[in-house]
């Protein structure tokens, strides 16, 4: 290995897992098995990831392989959202559409403006970051919308009964849910650099990139994440509205009626 972290170093860091196991045993938490299993599982998954990365996105590999992997990531992220918020019908399809839209917009800007070159070393990492953050925001938003709609169901129906179309009747509640979903993202963005160093920047610094280059890359990434979360949540909010109302402007909440 020619990277900054030697294999021996990886093994040494495993001692830290043993420290955690020791604490668990000392405090009687009974988490020893879970800790070891989680550490081993992460190791195996990352090793596999490394092998796939070598095969698919190493310099010189065809770019089509990278896009194929992006498609698989979108599929998997959609499935994850569906699994974590199972009570919303069609959410798998909807979130995949949202991630795709966000990818087109954000990667379109980054690659279109030439911020990064389109090659096998940039597409997958950027898409992965973008999709990962969008996935978290989608889970948060769709849960928030369901909670808000269940809570304010009477108000929404009172608005419909006044002859408001579903788009108008839903607007105040969608807006509230969107705010709740976006505010943490904005707070994180504000605190970056002061409260915490983003994992990617730490990785770059450890890999020997100069701080200035690391900061530049981080700024781009942060804006990428912010933009993709905004696009994703907008698409999800509009889509949820279509899912939760019939064409005759009737509220249809799963799990009620």
């Amino acid at each position: 290995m020619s990277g900054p972290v030697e294999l021996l170093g990886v093994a040494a860091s495993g001692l830290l897992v043993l420290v955690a196991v020791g604490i668990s045993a000392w405090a009687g938490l009974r988490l020893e098995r879970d800790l070891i299993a989680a550490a081993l599982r992460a190791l195996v998954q990352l090793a596999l990831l490394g092998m796939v990365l070598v095969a698919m996105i190493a310099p010189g590999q065809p770019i089509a392989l990278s896009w194929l992997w992006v498609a698989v990531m979108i599929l998997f992220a959609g499935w994850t959202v569906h699994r974590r918020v199972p009570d919303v019908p069609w959410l798998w399809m909807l979130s995949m559409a949202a991630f795709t839209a966000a990818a087109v917009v954000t990667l379109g800007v980054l690659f279109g403006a030439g911020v990064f070159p389109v090659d096998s070393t940039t597409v997958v990492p950027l898409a992965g970051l973008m999709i990962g953050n969008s996935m978290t925001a989608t889970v948060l938003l769709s849960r928030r919308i369901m909670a808000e709609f269940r809570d304010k169901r009477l108000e929404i129906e009172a608005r419909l009964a006044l002859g408001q179309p579903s788009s108008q009747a839903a607007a105040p509640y969608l807006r509230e849910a969107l705010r709740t979903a976006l505010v943490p993202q904005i707070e994180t963005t504000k605190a970056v650099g002061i409260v915490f160093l983003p994992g990617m920047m730490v990785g770059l610094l450890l890999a020997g990139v100069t701080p200035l280059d690391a900061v530049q890359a981080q700024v781009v990434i942060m804006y990428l994440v912010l933009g993709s979360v905004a696009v994703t949540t907008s698409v999800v909010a509009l889509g949820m509205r279509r899912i939760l109302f019939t064409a005759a402007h009737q509220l249809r909440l799963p799990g009620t009626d």
Partner: protein
Amino acid sequence: MSILTGASTAAALPPPSPDGAVFTFDDVGVRFGTTEVLRGVDLEVAGDGITVVLGPSGSGKSTLTRLCNRLLDPSSGRVDLRGTDVRALDVLQLRRAVGMVFQRPTLFDGSVGDNLAATGVTDAAAHEEVLDAVGLDAGFLRRDGGTLSGGEAQRVCLARSLLVRPQVLVADEPTASLDDASSRTLEQLARRLADDGVPILWVTHDLAQVDRIADARVVLEGGRVVAGR
């Protein structure tokens, strides 16, 4: 017909008339999954006066009211507004023609004025007039909805649904959460409205109330009409 609603295929709203029935239920059934909430309901709501639907809780009364303005569609059978299937009408126009007051006062965030403006009618004089009609003075317009008593809130809800001049009023146990005095006030308002030519479908489980206000009565039990078609 409004261009905004794009209702090219919808039938024109039948004009208000005291003759005949305002709502006709024809063999109406509603199922939620395997639960039958309404079964074979045949019912006429008179084109004038107050028609009361009486029944214990769980008898399907609320469901019945929700069919009138298509917050819900029946699983079988049909509901007519003055002889036209409600599903053939533009749904947004239907809902403005059928005023609705719910069991619990449901005010939106903001002032009483904001609540009235949610109807799309923003004219201040119209707001004052409709508040006056439910016995509240113009000072209420600026009050926050959250500061009202239950009775006041329900009167604002009534004013809100009257603001668009509905042809008929549907009230789903509107006094269920109110004290006696507020209930009586609301009953008197309903009577005045009915005398002014707006027919009312009023749902309740309160027998004494039926005796006070009903011009016609229908008894619902276990999702079926058992008396007083």
